[in-house]
């Protein structure tokens, strides 16, 4: 497991007398430092040759409840690319403030804005601490424990049926006219102004929130001098549904269908993250039946192919190659058929469970997958003939949006975006969850980190996924139909059910995740005591942190590059907004 060893963590304690070590029986040890020494300690962790925790992963808050004093705790997760280890550093946010980390990791910028938005923690020294998802005039901080799960129902909003057709809806099941607050036009204007406090040039171009090129509801602001972008900012949150808040009120199997709605293009992978994290918290991840492991690996890779096909089609479409879109969607259709047959849904899949999968493969699944794989490499070759060495494609991609290795660490970029910059950061290799330790595959890495490299890396990833799926099929063919696909605990204290009722989590904390098509989706679960509902359920979204580098890449570029850069970063709004 990619976690710092107890030995190394204890050496930190010897060096700094203020460090407090929290041992964890599952191996997820963490350290706690006082707020005053926080920055000094982090500097050491980042720079010391024995530690080198250079890479930013996540920075969030736990609310310990109104009665606790101090109430809020900051949780920082870092990764050391040198030693392939992670660490959690905690500190108490006394007076509801914390020092900003933006001067050490650029990725902290959005993380801190999110923490301010959701918890109301101020970060001293942050350059523009505005809200992340909600509009600027919103009064509450929704992830605080005293915020009710249904929100404050403050405004009256009758249904259009009732207004226009005089239908009497009151009294119907679940119908209420009262709703939570909505932003007005003024609120939105204030929000927009605050995001770009100092205009540099003449024109501010609004791109989105509803524009086909943004692939979802993202709202871009470009401050432009002629055709060139001087300053850029992004307003997201139009799709914010508070998945973390919802998750804190559900049992862990019930959370899985909600994650389907995050990255709806690769929902299998989103499900996978929650399963892996919860299994690691329970300490059963290694004991999951072999069959379930291979089914999950196979499905996750099929989902990666599916997701990358959609990405390739829409990306080429955005750059003007309409044919590609039709071709990739044709192959995708077959994959969707396979998903429908195996899992019961084409899009919002909910097939994986903590402990395995909910049902065995139906008759003929492996044949269908093999049939798909048979002519898929040929199709992939067609795509490459159309694009890879096409002169328009080369011109529009090469040297556009170069991401350096430093950027990867500083912004916490993951997935294909990180790998295209030459950083072989792949959780499938590092963590070897499920059956990834037993299958052969290569991690593609790029050279320059431009859009063209990101394209090549993703296409290569599709090929590697095909390889993994084939190995899984071979393995599954040898198994018996009576092999279990769901974990049965021997331990009396543990209860895991397929339908979720009574599934319990143990005391402790965990950070684990999976490598999704759009970067690492990490799940941080904190449980102060055994229970059904997770006390803090943090989703570290790869798409969210990857999108953060977009404004930086756009500065000085012509507006036409926005499409290329956005497409190759490939965020999905369901996951950035959660």
């Amino acid at each position, binding site marked *: 497991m990619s976690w710092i060893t107890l030995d190394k963590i204890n050496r930190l304690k010897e060096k700094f007398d203020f460090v407090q070590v929290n041992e964890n029986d599952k191996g997820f040890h963490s350290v706690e430092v006082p707020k005053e020494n926080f920055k000094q300690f982090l500097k050491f962790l980042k720079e010391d040759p024995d530690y080198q925790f250079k890479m930013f992963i996540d920075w969030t808050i736990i609310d310990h409840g109104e009665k606790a004093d101090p109430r809020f705790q900051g949780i920082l997760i870092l990764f050391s690319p040198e030693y392939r280890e992670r660490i959690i550093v905690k500190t108490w946010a006394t007076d509801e403030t914390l020092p900003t980390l933006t001067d050490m990791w650029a990725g902290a910028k959005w993380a801190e804005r999110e923490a301010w938005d959701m918890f109301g923690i101020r970060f001293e020294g942050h350059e523009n601490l505005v809200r992340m998802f909600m509009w600027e005039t919103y009064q509450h901080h929704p992830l605080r424990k005293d915020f009710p799960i249904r929100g404050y129902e403050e405004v009256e909003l009758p249904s259009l049926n009732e207004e226009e057709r005089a239908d009497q809806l009151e009294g119907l099941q679940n119908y209420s006219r009262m709703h939570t607050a909505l932003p007005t036009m003024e609120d939105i204007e204030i929000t927009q102004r605050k995001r770009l406090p100092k205009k540099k040039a003449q024109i501010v171009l609004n791109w989105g929130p509803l524009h086909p090129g943004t692939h979802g509801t993202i709202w871009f602001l470009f401050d432009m001098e002629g055709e060139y972008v001087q300053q850029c900012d992004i307003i997201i949150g139009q799709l914010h549904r508070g998945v973390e808040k919802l998750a804190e009120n559900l049992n862990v199997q019930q959370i899985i269908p909600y994650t389907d709605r995050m990255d709806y293009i690769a929902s299998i992978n989103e499900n996978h993250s929650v399963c892996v994290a919860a299994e690691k918290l329970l300490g059963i991840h290694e004991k999951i039946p072999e069959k379930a492991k291979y089914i999950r690996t196979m499905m996750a890779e099929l989902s990666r192919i599916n997701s990358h096909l959609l990405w390739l089609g829409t990306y080429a479409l955005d750059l003007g190659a309409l044919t590609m879109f039709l071709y990739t969607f044709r192959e995708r259709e077959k994959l969707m058929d396979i998903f429908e047959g195996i899992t019961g849904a084409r899009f919002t899949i909910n097939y994986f469970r903590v402990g395995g999968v909910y049902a065995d493969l139906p008759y003929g699944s492996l044949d269908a997958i093999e049939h798909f794989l048979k002519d898929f490499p040929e199709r992939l070759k067609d795509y490459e003939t*159309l694009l890879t060495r096409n002169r328009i494609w080369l011109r529009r991609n090469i040297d556009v949006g170069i991401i350096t290795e430093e950027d990867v660490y500083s912004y916490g970029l993951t997935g294909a975006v990180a790998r295209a910059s030459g950083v072989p950061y792949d959780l499938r290799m590092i963590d070897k969850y499920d059956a990834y330790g037993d299958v052969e595959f290569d991690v593609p890495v790029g050279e320059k980190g431009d859009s063209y490299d990101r394209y090549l890396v993703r296409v290569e990833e599709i090929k590697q996924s095909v390889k993994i799926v084939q190995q899984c099929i071979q393995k599954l063919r040898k198994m018996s139909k009576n092999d279990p696909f769901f974990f049965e605990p021997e331990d009396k204290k543990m209860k895991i059910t397929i339908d979720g009722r009574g599934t319990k989590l143990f005391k402790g904390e965990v950070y684990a995740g999976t490598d999704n098509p759009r970067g690492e989706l990490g799940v941080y679960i904190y449980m102060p005591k055994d229970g059904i509902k997770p006390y803090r359920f943090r989703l570290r979204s790869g798409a969210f942190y990857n999108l953060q580098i977009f404004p930086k890449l756009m500065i000085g570029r012509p507006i036409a590059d926005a499409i290329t850069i956005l497409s190759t970063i490939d965020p999905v709004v369901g996951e950035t907004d959660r």
Partner: protein
Amino acid sequence: MGIKKVGLNRTVQPQTLKEKVLFLDFMKGLRTTIKHLFRKVITVDFPFELIEPAPRFRGVHGLRNVDGTEKDDFEAWVKKLKIKPPEPGETRCIGCKFCQAACPVPEIFVIKTEKLDVPEDHPYHGLKVLSQFDMDLSKCMFCGLCTLACPTICIIHTDIYDLSTYTRNGWVLNKETLSKIADDFIARRGKEKYDDKSNWPDWQKIWDDRDTARAKAWDNNPPRLGPNYADQH
């Protein structure tokens, strides 16, 4: 396991002068598109042609009635919850509310049972029947947790996917409608999905391989379905 380096000059050669001058990159692309031009149509002519959803498809819910394929412990459950033993054709639901407990959005369900109004010496005295079972499908996310929780395999997913209505009210289905939906589904496709004890059998297919509409998406060359595992037939 390893690292594979990709990039221009690594795995992809830059364009040569000949390619540039003769527009060979475009020619190759055109050859591909022309090749695809002569392939058969793969799209389905909806709504005149319909793909039959897979047996596992999670569509609109139904409530199954007693039809002799109950599980062995059905009677025990009925007794335990003090429900009037159902006749064939009556609902299997025993009002245990397990479905509601498993559902991430419990407000979807309104489940009520009521005591039978019979004299004291009647054998059904003190027993209950299901009096209300409403589901508001506008709030449902078709995750399937309720169907997995049901001990009597009463609540099921059917293959119906077109559930749009003009009013919110149209999404609230009561127990009679749900029963009808289930009866219709079981009559049409029950044999594909359940065995004679209402369990999912291992011969449950990924989809019906005789479906010609689905075959179109597979270039009219659909996979031939066979067993997955070594000891399956």
